């Protein structure tokens, strides 16, 4: 069922070498090709559109769900809607991600809408990796839309990674945090050649004592273009911190458009944004440890995006 190409894509987006343990749903070229459910995690196909519902029972601890998508047919346009219901008091890891191999001249595109509800006291770690490969002239395009609601005392940790091969992406993430809910977003992005990436993250801190931290790190090389819209709205006694750092190289263009808005006197919001090239002192330091200039640059970028 999985050929060598599929396995490589799965490894890149979900660190999978074989079919995963626990619950999973693997989607290839617009169709499901494998699914497993457990006693605590159910996966059901949507009746009205393409996609799945993932239901995690309350109190489910230390389980994971893998839902990778792979596209290997050139020119395919895939659209999927997935819904996640993370039960009260549960603690789960969800590994999503999409890998595209495009060996043709037409564009391959995967658009996904993921909506989550993390119920009271639930904890979810969500990892989404994007990867593209193939020597065709067609672009590899990924446009994920993610909507997350975190109920009282819930925690959402979001890891968004796009390191290689995606020509064009438009990422749109919305998060709504209720009382004492916590959000940690880590975004890592590398673009090169003529790639273009846009990331929009909007967080509404609705509940008392809700907290959010967004760390966005990116590297733009060659003639690539990046734009970040990071918006945090404090609507209660809450704390929010956005840290957006970019390393710019060659003829790349990076734009960061920060916005923080307070609608409550006890809202504490901080935004930090920095764009700059690699500091020459960093390169000199690593060269003084015996690395070449190229190795030093590589290590600095690797650490920055780790």
């Amino acid at each position: 069922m999985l050929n060598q190409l599929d396995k490589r894509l799965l490894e890149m987006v979900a660190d999978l070498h074989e079919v995963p343990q626990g619950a999973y749903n693997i989607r290839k070229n617009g169709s499901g090709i494998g699914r497993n459910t457990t006693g605590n995690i159910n996966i059901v196909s949507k009746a009205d559109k393409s996609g799945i519902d993932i239901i995690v029972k309350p109190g489910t601890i230390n389980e994971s769900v893998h839902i990778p998508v792979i596209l290997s047919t050139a020119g395919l346009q895939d659209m999927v809607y997935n819904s996640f219901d993370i039960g009260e008091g549960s603690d789960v890891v969800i590994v999503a991600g999409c890998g595209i191999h495009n060996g043709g001249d037409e564009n391959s595109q995967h658009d996904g809408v993921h909506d989550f509800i993390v119920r009271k006291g639930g904890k979810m770690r969500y990892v989404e990796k994007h990867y593209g490969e193939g020597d065709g002239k067609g672009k590899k395009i990924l446009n994920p839309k993610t909507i997350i609601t975190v109920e009282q005392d819930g925690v959402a940790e979001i890891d968004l990674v796009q390191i290689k091969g995606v020509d064009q992406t438009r990422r749109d993430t919305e998060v709504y945090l209720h009382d004492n809910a916590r959000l940690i977003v880590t975004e890592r992005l590398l673009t090169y050649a003529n790639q273009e990436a846009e990331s929009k993250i909007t967080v509404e801190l609705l509940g008392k004592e809700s907290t959010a931290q967004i760390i966005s790190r990116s590297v733009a090389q060659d003639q690539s273009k990046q734009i970040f819209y990071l918006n945090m709205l404090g609507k209660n006694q809450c704390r929010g911190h956005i840290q957006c750092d970019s390393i710019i190289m060659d003829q790349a263009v990076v734009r960061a458009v920060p916005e923080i808005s307070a609608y409550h006197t006890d809202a504490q919001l901080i935004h930090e944004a920095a764009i700059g090239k690699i500091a020459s002192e960093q390169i000199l330091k690593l060269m003084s440890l015996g690395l070449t200039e190229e190795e030093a640059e590589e290590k600095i970028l690797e650490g920055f995006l780790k």
Partner: protein
Amino acid sequence: MLQIKNLSFSVEEGNRSVEILKNINLVLEKNKLYVITGPNGGGKSSLAKAIMGIIQPTQGSIHLKGEDITSLGITDRAKRKMGYAFQQPPRFKGFKIKDLLKLAYGEEKNEDEICDLLLEVGLCAQDYINRDVDASLSGGELKRIEIATVLARNLTLAIFDEPEAGIDLWSFQKLVETFKMMHADKETTIIIISHQEKILSLADEVIIIAEGTVKEQAKRDDIMSRIVKDLECGCNKTCDIGGSAHVEPIG
């Protein structure tokens, strides 16, 4: 071990050339500890950077164990077991302290070995090993990690540019002990740029650099006794040392 011949270094400022180092000649012997001192802006750090290959001299040559290394870059000098602790070390976002120290070692090291190294520079290892080398570290903490990157490397020639700057008294004492031990091992030639009496007192020889030239290179006791005498003469801001050179008070 290290020989510097007729070394000069100039920078262009507008339409004129400013000489930072002027015809420096030095011979440093194997396994000795040298302290370079002198007034601010006198050329000490520029000399150290020229030795490490961070800046290229405009004239003259540098020889390590008989090999002319003048045209070699930093990486090649590092591969010849030369090391340099920067006066103002850079921070690295996303780099853990243990990762930087592993790079410095140049080989895989376990966490216990890395912890031992951090202890040598006065850092409580377990609190630091997984921290990032970023703005969350104070200047003094960063400086001690910088020194640790040099200690890790088992060097032929180790250069420390004002290692005491920004370090608290307790850690400074620890650092002095570390330099003593490093010198006692007799495997590394050590150059320390410093104004501190305790570090000067470790020196086999003291080199005074001022106005871009070597004003004096002499045994520690000869120079120290003169410094004390000059301080006793009452001029406690600056004292004449080695002809026209001026050094700031020490101790």
